[in-house]
């Protein structure tokens, strides 16, 4: 074994507010794993880190913003996307990433998601889907599988979950991928692609919540979930999103489903205003404070 003069730093640490580590996430929680992938993607995508802003809503995943040593915003429950919209529109030079939970983005925040996708604003939306509202103690989410137990569906969930990739595509997203926390390399690659793409990108990450989802549903610990993902996932890049509904009883379809081009909000806006106003249009790349 080589004598190690310099032990390199864990590559994720440069992105962490180390004074806040250890974080609050439970043993075997997948959120930290997703953060590792994100760190790798930041490196690989070569984005200017001083121009990256992370916006989270509220929830276990919502705490991501607070751990990342980037300009980071922990907003209100469900409203990360409109906050991010303001950030991006006021300073189009920023690379704005929304990193939040399934409940935050798709229960209370669902409307903002579909509207931002429709507008095709340059945002990267990373959703850690643990199939539950974790932070508040394990209530049913719009992603909870039918018949799963939760604290507010003590006899089993009776609402079908969203097919998030299909919803994203129908609303207008230009990049849509799903991975589990088992798929660390693929996830990191998708994150990198999303960071380097113009338009609205959405990445769903199926992730273990041993404490509040799995325990109640007798699904073991984080590692059990990871093994389950490994065993039950099928990579189907380009699969029609209508065929990828998440169903805990059959294969988990993962992959990059959508990667298309549509005019972006900022592009269309500039085009439209320049066309109508010509020289008079005072296009701004970055709004200064007056």
């Amino acid at each position, binding site marked *: 074994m080589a004598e*190690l003069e310099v*032990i*390199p730093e864990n590559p994720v640490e440069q992105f*962490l507010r180390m004074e806040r580590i250890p974080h609050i996430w439970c*043993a*075997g929680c997948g959120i930290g*794993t997703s953060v*590792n992938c994100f760190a790798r993607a930041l490196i690989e995508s070569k984005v200017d880190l001083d121009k990256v802003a992370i916006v989270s809503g509220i929830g276990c995943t919502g705490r991501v913003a607070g751990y990342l040593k980037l300009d980071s915003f922990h907003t209100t429950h469900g409203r990360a996307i409109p906050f991010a919209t303001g950030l991006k529109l006021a300073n189009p030079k920023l690379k704005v990433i929304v990193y939040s939970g399934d409940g935050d983005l798709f229960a209370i925040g669902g409307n903002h998601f579909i509207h931002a996708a429709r507008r095709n604003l340059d945002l990267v939306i990373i959703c850690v889907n643990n199939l539950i509202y974790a932070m508040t103690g394990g209530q049913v989410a719009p992603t909870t599988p039918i018949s799963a137990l939760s604290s507010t569906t003590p006899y089993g969930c009776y609402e079908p979950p969203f097919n998030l990739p299909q919803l994203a595509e129908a609303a207008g997203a230009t990049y849509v991928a799903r991975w589990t926390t088992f798929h660390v390399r693929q996830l990191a690659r998708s994150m990198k692609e999303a960071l380097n793409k113009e338009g609205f990108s959405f990445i769903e990450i199926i992730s273990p919540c041993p404490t509040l989802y799995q325990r109640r549903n007798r699904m073991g610990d984080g590692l059990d979930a990871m093994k389950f993902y490994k065993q039950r996932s099928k990579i189907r890049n380009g699969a029609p999103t209508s065929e990828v509904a998440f169903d805990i009883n059959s294969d988990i379809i993962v992959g990059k489903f959508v990667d298309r081009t549509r005019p972006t909000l900022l592009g269309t806006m500039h085009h439209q205003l320049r066309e109508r106003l010509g020289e008079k249009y005072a296009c701004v790349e970055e709004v200064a404070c007056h």
Partner: protein
Amino acid sequence: MAKGSVSIIVERCKGCGFCVEFCPTKVLALSSAFNSKGYHPPYVVAPEKCSGCDLCGMYCPDFAIYGWKIPSNGKPGEDSEDEE
């Protein structure tokens, strides 16, 4: 000789076992000892097998472990791609 090496920050570990399970070359095992938080951290059982692929690092939810490649000149670096 090992192509890579791995660092473990025992006190951060929560013993989830991800690194042990998903190390492609089975370099690691969970220790039977506890860290001060009461978790069993991993330790290196087969150092010579470590490729430095850093999959352990990517999996670890607690930023408690990471691997790196040992470059020919003996200093850590990123001299090879390792995409699966």
